[in-house]
């Protein structure tokens, strides 16, 4: 493991040296590689959608029934046909009234405060093996379907940039919206802040094979 990491380090150093020699003498304050981001490239990365008012939602729309088809093809394998989850893959529906339990079921219906956030999450992160590959219409349709699975919207609901911010989520009023800080008593100590004898490793990632894979489909982050 460590030998392959060493090779990667050597390879990246080699690339940097080559890039430096191609670019010739770098300008002061620059490393001599890379280009300025174009407006189109920035637009490709500017995908965030604000939860409470849906700012950033793009044009497009989708129905509950349309979402059922996309869901069956893209989502059901992990999340179950009706959002019930499979194994360690999370439930998308249900869990109402469990937030104070020892094992709360945090789903779109039981927990999430804003419907536009569901659009944002699906758009940026799903499906997990190929994130950010769905069209805006497909994401709207999935959002409508999952909201309907949670009985938050009726089956004739059409999700778009105007309708999603108006959806009242069941747990909308279950959050504290004022800044709760400081919520820990940490002090700005700089020296002798702890007794070295008290510092113990309680858990470690070593040997658990948790490092994500570094190959597979890459997201080119093109504007939709």
């Amino acid at each position, binding site marked *: 493991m460590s030998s392959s990491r060493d090779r990667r380090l050597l390879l990246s150093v080699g690339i940097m040296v080559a890039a430096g020699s191609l670019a010739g003498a770098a300008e002061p304050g620059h490393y001599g590689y890379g280009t300025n981001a174009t407006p189109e490239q920035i637009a490709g990365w500017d995908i965030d959608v604000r939860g409470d008012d849906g700012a950033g939602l793009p044009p497009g729309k989708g129905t509950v029934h349309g979402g059922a088809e996309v869901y069956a093809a893209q989502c059901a394998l992990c999340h179950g046909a009706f959002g019930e989850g499979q194994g360690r893959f999370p439930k998308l529906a249900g869990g109402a009234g469990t937030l104070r339990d020892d094992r709360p079921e*945090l789903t779109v219906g039981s927990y999430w405060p804003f419907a536009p956030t569901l659009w944002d999450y699906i758009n940026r992160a799903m499906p997990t093996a190929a994130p950010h590959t769905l069209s805006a219409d497909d994401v709207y349709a999935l959002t409508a379907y999952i909201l309907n699975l949670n009985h938050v919207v009726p089956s004739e609901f059409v999700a778009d940039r105007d309708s999603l911010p108006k959806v009242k989520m069941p747990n909308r009023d279950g959050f504290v919206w004022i800044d709760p800080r400081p919520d820990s008593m940490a002090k*700005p100590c700089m020296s002798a802040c702890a007794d070295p004898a008290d510092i113990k490793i309680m858990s470690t990632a070593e040997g658990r094979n948790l490092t994500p894979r570094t190959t597979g489909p890459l997201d080119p982050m093109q504007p939709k």
Partner: protein
Amino acid sequence: MDGGVNWQSARLHEPVLSKALTKFTLPWRWDGQPALLQSRVIDETGYVQPTIGQLRTQRGSNSVYHNNSIQTWQIKPDGSVFDVQLA
């Protein structure tokens, strides 16, 4: 470098913005000994990033989301690095 016993101020790099990831540097020459690397932030309101223990004392162990506690990286003498959690 010692799991939170002693801290040094790091240099921040622009842009330094509220609620935003901020680059910083702190030169460190590894002496080949085991180390526990941590970084801790104090924001513009004086809030000090908590340890995982301080966070658990305040929120309990079932907080699920919004874990903003200090992250620890264990450096072993062979140079390997692991994500660890301290008491």
